[in-house]
């Protein structure tokens, strides 16, 4: 309790280490390519590049908060992108209302699948890792079966839908706006509503929350529905951006990066805790690494090495903090 204490480096690094490395990387890239990297244009570029990953990672944060796991987010992203395009192609209408209806319908379907995940994991107590992996096979199979492996081509998809991925409002890309809106909504939900607080309680101590009258089952279903819906939304934005409904290969690229972002986030500001702001930092870190290294003309393999090293450093700082607590 004395004020004459030495500066707490471990505590500092485990809270601000990831933000520090984000600032450091931005500084390095800005120094390396001052005419390209630190421009408004490139900043929007980075945000645009990470928006889809960001939407999926934010959703994943919710299910990790309750202590569950979701490996089906990759398949769910493909699901969102393919079925939105396919439904619109079948309906063959350019109406904004039809587009809105299809988006809502696809997200509702994704929520339903997430609720099934949540119910299987909580009521039956299945292992979330294996169960969601199994669910991702099923979802992938359904997409392949329905599509016959054929991509829905750009000509069959109304412009109103493609604007979700390609449009701009006041010069800001639509995917970035969707990312920001998702972030704000989930931040409000997790930090400032009773449901969010109950989810943190369950993730922190499931038995104590049961004894406080909080239903694990209810919040598991709710959390996994949100995670699945966000994954589908991310895939849907990706499809709109691409202007095509691809039946495979869409979500797979995001699955592991989303986990990386969320775990980097859990060692940011509040060590050991999954939270929206942390996930946002993790996503930005990934975006800055990828963009910066390619702007610098560094070969792609370095992106993997740098990203992996930063994740390991983040995990070390988080574990040092928890070791010290004990």
């Amino acid at each position, binding site marked *: 309790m004395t004020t004459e204490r030495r500066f707490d480096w471990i505590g500092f690094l485990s809270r601000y280490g990831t933000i520090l490395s984000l600032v450091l990387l931005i500084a390095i890239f800005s120094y390396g390519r001052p005419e390209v990297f630190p421009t408004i244009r490139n900043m929007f570029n980075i945000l645009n590049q990470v928006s889809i990953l960001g939407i999926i990672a934010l959703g994943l944060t919710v299910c990790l908060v309750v202590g569950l796991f979701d490996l089906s987010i990759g398949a769910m992203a493909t699901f969102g992108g393919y079925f939105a395009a396919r439904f619109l192609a079948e309906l063959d209408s350019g109406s904004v209302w039809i587009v809105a209806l299809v988006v809502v319908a696809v997200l509702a379907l994704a929520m339903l699948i997430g609720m099934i995940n949540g119910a299987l994991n909580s009521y039956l107590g299945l292992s979330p890792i294996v169960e969601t992996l199994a669910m991702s096979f099923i979802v992938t199979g359904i997409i392949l079966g329905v599509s016959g492996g054929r991509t829905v081509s750009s000509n069959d998809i109304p412009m109103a839908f493609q604007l979700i991925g390609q449009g701009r409002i006041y010069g800001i890309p639509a995917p970035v706006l969707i990312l920001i809106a998702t972030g704000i909504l989930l931040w409000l939900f997790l930090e400032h509503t009773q449901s969010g607080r109950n989810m943190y309680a369950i993730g*922190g101590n499931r038995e104590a929350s049961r*004894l*406080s*009258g909080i239903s694990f089952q209810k919040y598991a279903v709710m959390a996994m529905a949100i995670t699945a819906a966000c994954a589908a939304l991310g895939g849907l934005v990706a499809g709109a951006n691409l202007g095509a409904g691809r039946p495979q290969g869409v979500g797979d690229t995001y699955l592991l990066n989303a986990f990386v972002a969320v775990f980097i986030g859990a060692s940011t500001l509040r060590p050991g805790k999954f939270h929206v702001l942390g996930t946002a930092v993790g996503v930005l870190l990934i975006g800055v690494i990828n963009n910066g290294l390619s702007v610098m003309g560094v070969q792609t393999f370095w992106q993997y090495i740098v990203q992996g090293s930063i994740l390991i450093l983040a995990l070390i700082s988080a574990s040092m903090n928890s070791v010290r607590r004990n």
Partner: protein
Amino acid sequence: MDGTVDDHPTTTDLAPSLEVRAMRKEFPGTLALDNVSLSVRRGEIHALLGENGAGKSTLIKCICGAYAPTAGEVFVEGQPATFSTPKGATDAGIAVVHQHFNLVPTLTVAENLWLGDPLPGRLGLVDWPRVHARARDILASLGLDIPTHAEIGSLRPDQLAMISIAKAVSGNARIIILDEPTNALLPHEVDRLFDQMRRLAARGHSFLYVSHRLAEVFQIADRATVLRDGRNAGVFDRENMDRRSVVEAIVGKKGALAERKTHSQARPDVVMQVRDLAGARTAGVSFELRAGEIVGVAGLPGSGAEEVLSLLFGRERRKGGSVTIQGKPAALRSPAEAIAAGIALVPQDRLAEAVFHGQSIRANISMPSLARYLREPVLRLINRAAESTATREVATRMRVRMPGIETAIDDLSGGNQQKVVLGRWLSTGARIFLLNSPTAAVDVGAKAEIYDLIHELAADGVGVIFASTELEEYPLVCDSVLVFSGGRVVGKLTGVEITESNIMTLAAGGDLHDDH
């Protein structure tokens, strides 16, 4: 000192198999063992008795090398045998069989008997026939009929106990320390275990038997050593081992003299009526709880006292009976229903069952009552300012010593954490508090504060049901005590009758008016 010192010549071989002389063990701030002596003869079943915290576990750990004693010596068969590692004690022939038997449930009997030894091999593969052959020999030498291919998880508790003992004996242990081996056993399983122990004792093995269950001790023990507050409090031979003197040695005179609760704050209105409550291990439990009344439920582990709390809070489904709260029948099928019915629970294991780790004091207090601070019913956004004000009030009322309500609960002392856990129920409108060892793992000063808080709750008209692993707490806290044994209420003590020795006597299956 009660009882007699070990100077009677008896029929058993007199050379002590295990002897402890003037053992002393200090921990920072406490003296756990003070000049403790113990002598176990060859072929003897020797009981080690005492309350929680009397020093039994510390003594065992000093004997088996888990702790280094501050002073004092251990002798095995007359040879100095003070060990600084568990391995040294094992090599000298001392084995400890713990309550949970240290067996791996997913492996077979044979694999467990070999655990820790290198398995015999043939051509680089395990020689299974030899593994099972030796396992069969070990079991047969103790007269045990247990298939060596059986999985440990599929066996009865008494078989597990015997396999643990067999494992110890096969490792050439001559002195076997049994730590509460009968907790999980049914009465006829206890009998089978005792038969086996007597057979081994007749062959010259010695047992140091730790138990709370006095009835069993009288049944099996040749002699008994009692510890109290880290000191010897008596040695009893079979002839002078009567219930009254043993209980008195265990609890001491303080049981009668402790500062007890003097006046009840009970009011006439009944807040909860329990009729014929039945659960997995209890039956026919009936009582009334009045506003402001503090009723204790006491008993040995597994007696059903604790289960009553679980049943009333909906952690376990009841099998029969009815509960009426303020005149209305209450189903109590889940903790959520119990909370809605106005019940609060402080569970025994604070860290595993009550504390939300890494979260603030504010969040820990408001968790069950968040619905009170909502801005609106649809999005259920929380009014943080209202939440902070209310939780700060609770923390102040519970006299939580803290830098502020945003401090993480993990940074508080055990006593202050417990005040937070108790305080979280002030805002849910609970009128019935179920407290299970609310002072477990808190320091002495905080204990007194928690007693005060419990009495303040009662003064406010809350009905309290209190359970504790420390019997000395009942006279300090309770207006009346229901004593459980074998899943039933075997006695009710009120006022000055509430003493540790009365509780212990009833809980051990005795009669208060029977002195023998």
